[in-house]
């Protein structure tokens, strides 16, 4: 499983046909020696992911087009993850989980992460939670492969040096039957992030900085490649945060070159062979952006667009009603560790309701068991309780996208929320007139402590 430490000429490419990492992955998956941006090619898919919101529609298309008795192309390459609308009494939402379960049984799908007992998620050993984090934790994200999913944040897996992007039900129905999809090769924007990361910044600040720079349509139809000494220093979860939000800049996919950090994360998670690919030195990038991370400050995306960037310290007069920490973007173990660090440093109590929704069952367990550094052995959950936060909820997508009316922490009033999630368009978390400030877990925790949008440096220095 361990990849070669030496990069062979086939993976780095030789001077003749310089390509970016994304071009190379698509070339290999389409059995072509060379590709240029704009070409449309049939790509062999390594993993197809769907969930309870788009799975039923995908299955409907698969059956309509391939026949009621058709079999999926490969029962081991389809991953079906209930995660969106789980802990709800909404009958249609419950029915949709039944549809994906019936299909998974009928097709003998190898990776179906079921939940039957909604009253206690812990009673469901197979249940994972938020699909993108579950994909990573269960070893489905592998360097050099192609992952397609019926969710726009499928680009999260680019953190592993994988080509990963979101598709619709119709395309997913096609993949389900054929294992292939016609994809257009995107040109690549390169983001070089150098410099030491200040202790008050997180990857969320970096990606909000970038989106603010290039706008919500700045990478439309394009790939975003993240390199540089800062990126190399990031953990896998932080790299995921970076890649997770490329779709918020319109990007088709985002990639981080696989390295020792990647292989270490993957150890014990997959037994499958994989071969990473890397951009050639002389590959063509559409443009290159450079950032000196050591000079950056904490930022938020103000209502109502992820590119409406503002310095946190310049929003200090914004009074808030609540804080939300969760989702594929901001509900990972390290996100909760970061929030706990701020609460611990302050020793104070939160001034507004603070909702915590771990992304997966594994994250939930970490929140309740892992000691927070410098706390004398306290867990995140203990620190959250002492700070007066709500008890960490059952893992799922939760209120990040509003969801059914009875969704935990859904914004049912026109309130102001600081959130570690990914989108702040009108109505995203429920109420159309609600105001969402997207922020890092540091900034979210600091804001919870004051009741205003607050720079984490107030507590971390």
């Amino acid at each position, binding site marked *: 499983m361990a990849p070669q430490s030496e990069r062979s000429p086939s993976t780095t490419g030789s001077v003749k046909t310089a390509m970016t990492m994304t071009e190379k992955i698509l070339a290999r998956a389409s059995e072509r020696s060379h590709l*240029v*941006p704009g*070409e449309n090619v*049939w790509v062999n898919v390594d993993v197809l992911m769907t969930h309870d919101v*788009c799975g039923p*529609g995908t299955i*409907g298309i698969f059956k*309509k*087009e*391939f*026949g009621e*008795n*058709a*079999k999926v192309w490969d029962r081991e390459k389809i991953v079906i993850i209930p995660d*969106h*609308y789980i802990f709800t009494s*909404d009958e*249609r*939402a419950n029915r*949709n989980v039944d*549809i994906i379960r019936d299909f998974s049984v009928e097709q003998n799908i190898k990776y179906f992460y079921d939940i039957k007992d909604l009253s206690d998620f812990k009673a469901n050993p197979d249940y994972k939670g938020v699909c993108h984090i579950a994909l990573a934790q269960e070893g489905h994200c592998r360097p050099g492969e192609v992952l397609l999913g019926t*969710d*726009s944040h499928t680009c999260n897996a680019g953190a592993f040096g994988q080509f990963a992007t*979101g*598709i*619709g*039900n*119709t*395309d997913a129905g096609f993949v389900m*039957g054929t294992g*292939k999809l*016609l*994809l257009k090769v995107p*040109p690549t924007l390169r983001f070089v992030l150098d410099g030491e990361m200040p202790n008050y910044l997180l990857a969320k600040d970096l990606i909000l900085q970038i989106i603010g*720079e290039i706008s*919500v*349509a700045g990478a*439309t139809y394009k790939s975003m490649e993240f390199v540089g000494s800062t990126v190399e220093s990031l953990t896998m979860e932080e790299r995921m945060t970076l890649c997770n939000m490329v779709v918020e800049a*319109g990007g*088709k996919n985002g990639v981080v070159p696989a390295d020792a950090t990647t292989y270490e994360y993957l150890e014990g998670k997959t037994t499958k062979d994989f071969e990473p690919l890397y951009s050639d030195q002389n590959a*063509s990038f*559409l*443009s*290159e952006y*450079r*950032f*000196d991370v*050591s*000079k950056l*400050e904490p930022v938020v995306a103000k209502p109502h*667009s992820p590119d409406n960037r503002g310095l946190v310290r310049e929003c200090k007069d914004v009074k808030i009603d609540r804080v939300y920490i969760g989702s594929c973007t901001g509900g990972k173990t390290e996100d909760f560790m970061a929030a706990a660090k701020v609460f611990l440093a302050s020793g104070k109590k939160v001034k507004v309701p603070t909702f915590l929704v771990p992304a997966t069952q594994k994250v939930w367990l970490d929140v309740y068991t892992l000691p927070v550094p410098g706390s004398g052995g306290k867990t995140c959950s203990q620190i959250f309780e002492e700070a007066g936060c709500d008890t960490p909820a059952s893992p799922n997508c939760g209120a990040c996208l*509003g969801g*059914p009316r009875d969704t935990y922490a859904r914004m049912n009033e026109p309130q102001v929320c600081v959130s570690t999630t990914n*989108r702040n*368009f*009108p*109505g*995203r978390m429920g109420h*159309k*007139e609600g105001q969402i400030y997207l922020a890092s877990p540091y900034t979210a925790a600091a804001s919870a402590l004051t009741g205003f949008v607050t720079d984490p440096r107030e507590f971390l220095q």
Partner: protein
Amino acid sequence: MATAAAAAAATATAASSSLSHATIIPRHPNKPSTLTTLSFRSISKAPTTFSTKFPSKLLSSPPPPLRRLSAAAATHNNTTTTATTTTFHGLCYVVRDNIDTDQIIPAEHLTLVPSNPDEYRKLGSFALVGLPSAYPIRFVDPGDFQSKYSIIIAGDNFGCGSSREHAPVALGASGVKAVVAESYARIFFRNSVATGEVYPLESEVRVCDECTTGDVVTVELAQGLLINHTTGKEYRLKPIGDAGPVIDAGGIFAYARNTGMISSFPVSA
């Protein structure tokens, strides 16, 4: 303490380095594509097929006189395609930039499964219900399943956000035939053509600044024109680009079957 100057410095570096390192690749490469990424599933919803490549001559010539329901032969590259001109005529509904999929169909309604006919209809009743109060005119009147507006005029980045196919489906189910936007988010564009629910057309200029909800408009596909009868103005539409061949085949499934990639419909076990 870092300052705003740092951010400005980052911007300046980005700009200067992009000058020195960038290789500019045109958005529409010169090489004509033989394959495309898109498909039409519910062909029945689309009045007819249409030619997707426009002769450049037509694009640079002055707009032809206003007319409706004409028939034309359009040529592209070396082949000549006879296409019955598709025309959409009706009232337009005007929105601005960055209308994301949560505004098109809020997440609480995603429990509706588009492939179920009853739920398809219901999705139509919720189309654009997520628009904030800045849009005082309802797109679909309460109690109705369909909208009286059949053409949406939008600004930049229409359909950004999630990959939910419910978004073009909700618009199609509500009776929308075409969207004319300044630009689209990638997944929405692809899903629109993949489902055949709406034609995602791009205007050359920012039409959303010049049209008002309720204006009477016509979209002439073959001529690549949007005509606003209320204001008497005409606007050029951009060619649909790479979508052509797969649309001509009748969708990604039909295209794959034509090329022998998958067997004839449907496969029975």
